[in-house]
């Protein structure tokens, strides 16, 4: 197999292999997600009726923060070891390689968070109707977070202290995802129709999937200059 033919899956495989061998790429965002959710009953109230009301929003907020925290690493490690320059110099179109990095990032952070969410929902006494929209919404929503976040991560890749800046730059763009995601769970809990809201989230995901990689590729070419 010629390496340039399959550079897209090559990057994906490599990123996942590195993450599996290190372990912390998977575990740290997940631990952050669990720990910050644990803060909620401690700070608000352990009463199940109160927790059930805020559970959808709290899980979504902590999931957002956990993805945001892991965003800094999408391109930064590759810049440090020089492989990012090779990716940019490769004859393949940059957006498809950026997409591979985003998919790898989602598999490392978004997917574990999505799979962990039902457990946290149970701990926050989320009513039974909320689990299906919570998991489907988070699966799509965290993918949006990774796609949008890649633009910000690409812009700040060469900055020494880009972490907080990255959050500031990216977070306003996360608002629609949070609104649709959290309210689909809330509607399900209240016994209302939630599929239209999830469909809206899906539409937003499609839109970011179509535009995000191009913006991130353009941002990467600018960002590596520091």
């Amino acid at each position, binding site marked *: 197999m010629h390496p340039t033919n399959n550079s897209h899956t090559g990057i994906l495989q490599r990123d996942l292999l590195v993450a599996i061998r290190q372990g912390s790429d998977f575990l740290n965002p997940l631990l952050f997600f669990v720990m910050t959710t644990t803060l909620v009953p401690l700070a608000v109230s352990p009463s199940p009726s109160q927790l059930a009301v805020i559970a959808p929003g709290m899980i979504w907020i902590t999931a957002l923060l956990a993805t945001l925290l892991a965003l800094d690493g999408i391109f930064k490690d590759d810049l440090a070891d020089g492989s990012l320059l090779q990716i940019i110099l490769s004859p393949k179109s940059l957006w498809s390689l950026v997409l591979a990095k985003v998919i790898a990032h989602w598999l490392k952070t978004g997917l574990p968070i999505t799979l962990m969410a039902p457990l946290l929902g149970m701990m926050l006494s989320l009513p039974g109707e909320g689990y299906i929209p919570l998991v489907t919404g988070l699966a799509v929503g965290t993918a949006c977070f990774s796609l949008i976040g890649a*633009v910000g991560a690409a*812009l700040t890749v060469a900055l020494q202290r880009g972490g907080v800046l990255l959050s500031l730059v990216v977070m306003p763009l996360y608002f629609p995802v949070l*609104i649709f995601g959290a309210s689909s769970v809330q509607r399900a809990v209240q016994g209302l129709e939630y599929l239209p809201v999830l469909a809206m989230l899906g539409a937003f995901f499609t839109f970011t999937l179509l535009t995000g990689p191009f913006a991130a590729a353009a941002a990467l070419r*600018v960002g590596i200059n520091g």
Partner: protein
Amino acid sequence: MWQSILKFIQKWFHRFGSPRWFYQTTGKWLPYLAVISVGLLVLGSIWGLGFAPQDARQGNSYRIIFIHVPISVLAMIGYYVMAAAGAVALIWKIKIANMVMVSAAPLGAALTFLALLTGSIWGKPTWGTYWVWDARITSMLILFFLYLGVIALNQAFTSRDTAYKACAILSLVGTVNIPIIYKSVDWWYTLHQPATIKLTGASSIHPDMLKPLIVMILGFYCFYALVLMLNTRTEILAREWRSSWVRGLSQ
């Protein structure tokens, strides 16, 4: 004929792209623009605050509309000015467009902050609280965050060229997202339906109140253009200080 028009536009485009030409030309415009904007703002303020009729329900407290509405309009348009300048800079690589974009960011952020401030001052007598999670207020707050993101990004880079390009990309991404953010916030608001009374409605405004309002909006447009030019001129001097014509200015 078309070719000569095209040639004229090209020539103008190239000249306008030069910081020196921009600096010298706007220098001639500034006094006129300053007189016009101060004149309109003074006229509109006196008309609006002193002579426009009282509101039947809000009494005199509605008069903040003559400041609040123009500021809010420009705060929103300012983002598009910034993004359009960024797009021009990215596509045609025009230096001056970058400088306009970077100068529009703090100006827009200041206007957005003032819109939020005057809105909450107006909210106290009419709604009874300084802050309500209303769709328009929330959208304005998010717009403020978007501006702050561009400003923070601009300051983070050591290389000016990278900072310009990065800000241009970010403001374009933000522009694409603004309609989505607005729609989602609108939808979020109708979903929750907090118990607030809506008292503003531009369509039902009395003509006697509308006329001074339009004067104020025009005045603020001129004021915006004036401050944007001043900001851009400062940016030009800061970036072009090595060139001989800038050095010549101080002698």
